[in-house]
Structures are given as C-alpha cells and as structure tokens.
C-alpha cells in the first residue's frame, strides 16, 4: 500500500468516514478534521511509518499535504 492508501485507511478507521470522500485534494477542514484530530492522525502515522514528526509547525491543509510530509520524513529518516 502506498502512503496515501495507508493514510486513507487511518482516517477511515478513526473517523468512520466514507473512503470515497478521502481524496488527495480534500482539505482536512472539509473532512471535519481539526488541528487536534490532525495530531491524532499523525500519531498513528508515526507508528505505521516508523517516523517521528517534529514538533515545529507544519502547514497542512489537504490530505496530500500529510502524504507529502510523511514521504519527506521517511526519506530523511531512512538516510
């Protein structure tokens, strides 16, 4: 499974969303996912992808933004 699919499964499982609504361009806001819920998703993603998301503010608006963040950290942290 690629990053997007894994992330989609996390969101579907956590928030009981219809998988079809979770597209790369969907904003977290449109999915009714607030900043606290985003931390919760990141927590699960850290476990799934064996990464550590630093505490500094990251600008996340869409699902794709989260995918990009995860991919970047995986690449950096595997080095």
């Amino acid at each position, binding site marked *: 499974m690629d990053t997007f699919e894994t992330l989609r499964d996390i969101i579907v*499982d*956590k*928030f*009981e969303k219809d998988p079809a609504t979770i597209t790369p361009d969907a904003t977290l806001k449109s999915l009714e996912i607030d900043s*606290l*819920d985003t*931390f*919760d998703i*990141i*927590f699960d993603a*850290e476990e799934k992808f064996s990464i*550590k998301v630093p505490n500094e503010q990251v600008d996340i608006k869409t699902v794709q933004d989260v995918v990009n963040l995860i991919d970047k950290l995986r690449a950096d942290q595997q080095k």
Partner: protein
Amino acid sequence: MTVRRVAVTGLGIISPLGNTADEFFSNLMAGKSGIRHLKADFADRLDTKIAAQAEFDALQHFGKHKASSLDRVSQFALYAAGQAITDAGLDLEQEDKNRIGIYLGTGMGGAASVEEGYVRLYRDGAERLKPFTVLMAMNNAAASAIALEYGLTGSNLTFSTACSSSSVSIGEAFQQVRHGYADVMLAGGAEALLTFGTIKAWEALRAMAAEDPEDPAASCKPFSANRTGLVLGEGAAIVILEDMERAMARGATIHAEITGYGSGNDSSHITQPSPEGQARAMRAAIDCAGLKPQDIGYINAHGTATPLNDSAETAAIKLVFGEGASGIPVSSTKSMHGHLMGATAAVEFIACIMALKQQALPPTINLHQPDPKCDLDYIPNVGRRGVSVRHVMSNSFAFGGTSGVLIASQP
C-alpha cells in the same frame, strides 16, 4: 434574603445496579447486589477481586472517534447527562444556554487514561503518548464534554473532594439556582477508577472489604459487626436542578425539591472521621432547609462499611438527632452498589429522590451481626414500602475531611 425554591426535574444514572433510575431503585428495593468478581485481565493480581462494575459499552452510544477520545469517566457522564436532560423534558434549543451550568464531582477523573499513559511509557518503553492523553485524563474532562455536547455556556466547575465530591457538586449547584446565578444546573458526579493501579492503591490503604467466602456479592456489610471495608464501584449520576417556578410554569415533572445542603471539613485526620464534623454538616443542611431534626424521615448514610466510618457516623447521627435517632430509618445502599467514590453521593441522592417519590426505603443488606456501636434502625436486609416520608437526608463524608449533606423534600 429571598431565595428561590429548587426543583429536581431530571434524573440520569449509570450504576452497577442498572442504567435508569427506575431499574436502579427497584434493584435497591429488592436488596440486589451489584458487587461481583471483577472482570479485568489484571484481576488475578489483586488481593481483593471484587468490585461493583457498571455495564456500559461506549460504542453503543458514541461513534468510534468520540468514544476513543473520551475516558470512561466522561463517557459515563455524557450518557447520564443525556438521560437527565431527556427525563427533564428540556428542549435546549429553546433555552438561554448562558443560564444553564454544569457542576460535577469526580475523585480521580480520567484515571484509566493516566494509567494507560504510564503503562506505555514505563512498561512498554514507548517514546510518545496519545495526543488526547491530557484531555482525557484531566479532572474537568467530563463536565467539559457535556458542555461541548449541548453548547451549555453557564458556570462549569468540577469538584474533587474524594468521596463527597458529588454531594458538594450538587449542593453548590443548588446554591447557584437558589440564589439566581443560574436557572438550570446539571449536577452530579462520575467515576471510573477500576484500574489496576488505582485498585492496588486502595488495597494498600487496607480499607477494602474482604471477599465473603460464601457469596462475593455479600462482601460489603455496612453497620454489621463483621464488616471489613468498602467495595469499589464505578458509574455516574446526574440530576437536573431547576428554578421551581420555572419548572412549574413549563409543566415539568417535579421529582422532588432540594431544600438543604451543608458542607464543612472535619479538620481532624486525613482518614479518620470525626462525629463532631459530620454532625456539623448535618445540622447545617437541616438549618438550610429550615427544618428541625425530627422532620427528617430517612437518612441515606455514607455507610462505607469500614470499621471506623460506620461507628463514627452512628455517633454523629446521635449528636444531631439525640433521643430521636433510633426512630429514624437509616440505610447504606453501598451494601448493594458499592462505593462509587466521586459519583457515589449523586447515585445515593437519586436513591433518596426515588425513596421520596415511591415512599419506599431501600435496605442495608448483609446486616446479620449487630455491632453494639451501631445501634440505629438501619433497615436491615429488607426494604420498606408504604412509608410516609416528607424529607430525606443523604450523608457523604470523605478522606480529607470534606463533608457534604443534602436534603430532598416532597415538592
């Protein structure tokens, strides 16, 4: 000073004896016990393996995300609040939500969330905790969850005075309505502390009942010579307190009137109760209600079944009621529902309101061996129906010494 009369218009409960006020009270009257072997994966490692657990599956009531972001204590509180609002027939969309507040009591708040965090860190060696840990563990999480759910913007406070927490929360909420700071208050308590660490801490205090070798359900024996201590329980109870005139104007069912509240501190010892301190709180409540001691027709005792509490409380009742003490029926319903700590006073207040409504007094079960130091009428083993009772009193005392006494009356 003019004060308003305060009606009790809604009842909500989750308890080891049922999850509606009617079911709870009919089990009390039947002398049923909610105490049994604890169902938990750590039960083998406990010295005392009994508890009074509530049957509650959060996923039947909340979505997955909500259930997983609320500690069990908040789930209890939110569910009991919904029940109380429905029972009161309140249409919140028609209400001025600034005039509706929430006062809750809890002893240990999100105990399970704290413990889960420690287990992850210390036992499992995890580096991080779940993002919701603080929000689930904080003592005010339950009261806050109710405010968020219903958009209630009035005063929102959490009282933590150990075993008297929800007596104090109901009493202070009563004052809010009585003195006009709020028109409606949701008041009560919630507790969910049946976790490994918490039970172990209680074991260390040596205040827990030994399991009855013949019948685990009969392990809590208040006022009996062979009493050995308390049994921990969990649950929540929330009542709706409302300005009486307003309640009557909207045609609400008035379950009872709350008329008296007394509180103070024993200021004598962290665990040992002081009859003088307890008596002060009872007198304060009776004064607040504008009553005389002989007006009280039933006392729901704190009655923990620890050796010290029950004899001290008996002595305190004698200090207040003098010669008349032996004529007042007193019972400890903890013999059946266990000690729900921060929720216990609210659960027992609901027992008192149901007693008034049904003119029926629940018993103290497991009382077969009289103790010379406990010589009042404890309604031993069998409840009484068809009584004539106008005013009832609910006693709550606590480690730390904070007492709370509530009086409810027929409206």
